[in-house]
């Protein structure tokens, strides 16, 4: 199975371990990823909150190139998935908008390709049975909280990955990998990552609330599919803990890193050394690495 790969800017920088683990896990599961040639930024939050046209045009350029490749798009980053999907839906709904965007990007766009988050590729195109069949080190005894955040699940109609209030798809994948999922309240509460640099004190509050709830439910780590959530919950964790006069030490991992371990990929190839809250002591304690 071949897909056009849209890593996005974060996966080439702060979320490099998501990129590395995505590529390795995909190889292992028989997903062939062909990078979209010369892809450009999806515009993140900045484009669509400043200009409605730029917010569609930036992702549309990448969709148009993927269409030339004749492949559906796999986008591991929650923000990229959201923006590519939103642009696609908006152009589908509004023929005139599509024409204007074609004029802006000076490329043909017919709306032929689908945009899938990597988790969806694994669920619907690989299948959980295939994941179970490939397990080498099931994540037995590892209690984790799946954290979805905003961009993958909201709003319905713009994205259609999972339920906006109680998503379960990351839980399903991690359960298939042998993990023990906690049932918790803050799966989709916003972590405020977009305010990390501009309203840090607000963002620290939101991070604290999420980590507090995960810890209360007995989670030993958090698993996510969003580079902004990961960075925020990991890097602002110490500040949040200080503010709440506690100590969380909750590693925040990409689901692909843990899935990689379960599939028997060498721990050294999954970027486990690039987190602020080091996940390795926990993984060693559980005998997983």
């Amino acid at each position, binding site marked *: 199975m071949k897909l056009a790969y849209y890593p996005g800017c974060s996966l080439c920088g702060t979320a490099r371990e998501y990129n590395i683990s995505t590529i390795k896990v995909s190889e292992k599961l028989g997903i062939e990823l062909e990078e979209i040639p010369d892809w450009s930024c999806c515009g*993140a939050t900045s484009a669509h909150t400043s200009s409605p046209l*730029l917010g569609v045009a930036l992702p549309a*350029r990448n969709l148009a190139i993927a269409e030339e490749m004749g492949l559906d798009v796999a986008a591991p980053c929650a923000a990229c998935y959201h923006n590519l999907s939103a642009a696609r839906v908006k152009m589908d709904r509004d023929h005139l908008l599509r024409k204007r965007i074609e004029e*802006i990007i000076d490329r043909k766009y017919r709306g032929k390709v689908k945009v899938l988050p990597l988790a969806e590729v694994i669920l619907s195109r690989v299948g959980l049975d295939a994941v179970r069949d490939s397990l080498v080190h099931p994540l037995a005894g590892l209690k984790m909280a799946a954290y979805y955040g905003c961009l993958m699940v909201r*709003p319905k109609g713009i994205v259609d990955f999972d339920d906006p*209030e109680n998503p379960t798809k990351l839980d399903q994948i991690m359960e298939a990998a042998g993990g023990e999922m906690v049932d918790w309240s803050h799966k989709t509460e*916003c972590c405020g990552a977009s305010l990390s640099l501009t309203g840090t004190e607000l963002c620290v509050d939101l991070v604290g609330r999420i980590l507090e709830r995960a810890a209360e439910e007995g989670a030993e780590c958090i698993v996510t599919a969003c580079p902004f959530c990961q960075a925020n919950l990991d890097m602002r964790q110490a500040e949040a803990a200080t503010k709440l006069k506690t100590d969380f030490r909750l590693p925040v991992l990409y689901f692909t890193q843990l899935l990689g371990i379960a599939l028997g990929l060498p721990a050294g190839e999954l970027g486990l*050394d690039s987190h602020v809250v080091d996940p390795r002591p926990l993984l060693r304690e559980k005998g997983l690495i």
Partner: protein
Amino acid sequence: MLNLQATIGAGREFTDEINHEAGTDINRCYQCGTCSGGCPLFYAMDIGPRQVMRLLQTGLGEEALRARSIWICATCDTCTVRCPREINVAGVMEALRIQARRRGYRIPAAVRKVRILTDLFLGSVRRSGRIFELGLVQGMKMRTGELLKDVGMGIPMLLKGKLSLRPHRIRGRAEIERIYRKVQEMEGGSR
């Protein structure tokens, strides 16, 4: 005598414009407050989303253009998915932010950084085609004067290879520049 009719008329036009941009109908709002109740940042807002809806309904929507809230909104869309009247509440907040920009409204000092980051981000993408994370953080430091903010975090990230020292420039930079220019032309020179 004050001509309230004219004010309300102009306000209604503004509401129509916001409705159009957000692809929604604010008049459906029955003020239940689910949006404000579920908003993770309501506690930091001056006027919450429910109040914003009411201002727009009564033709006083331009008041909201001065609010901190439209810049604090993280566009998390919780309000939108929970609205029992299916109003695109987050889309309205976004449309207001865009209007505040277009009309040159002064941004409240407390949220000035949101605007700075957005401009730096869009500038970086315009120049390189992709975002240059380290450049963005440096730019924020220069523009806000907070030179030491998060330094303790930046150094380990550099050492872990999570921050590239140079921007990655795509080949199609001229194409990106053309996209920006055309958008500016179509949106009337604003961005």
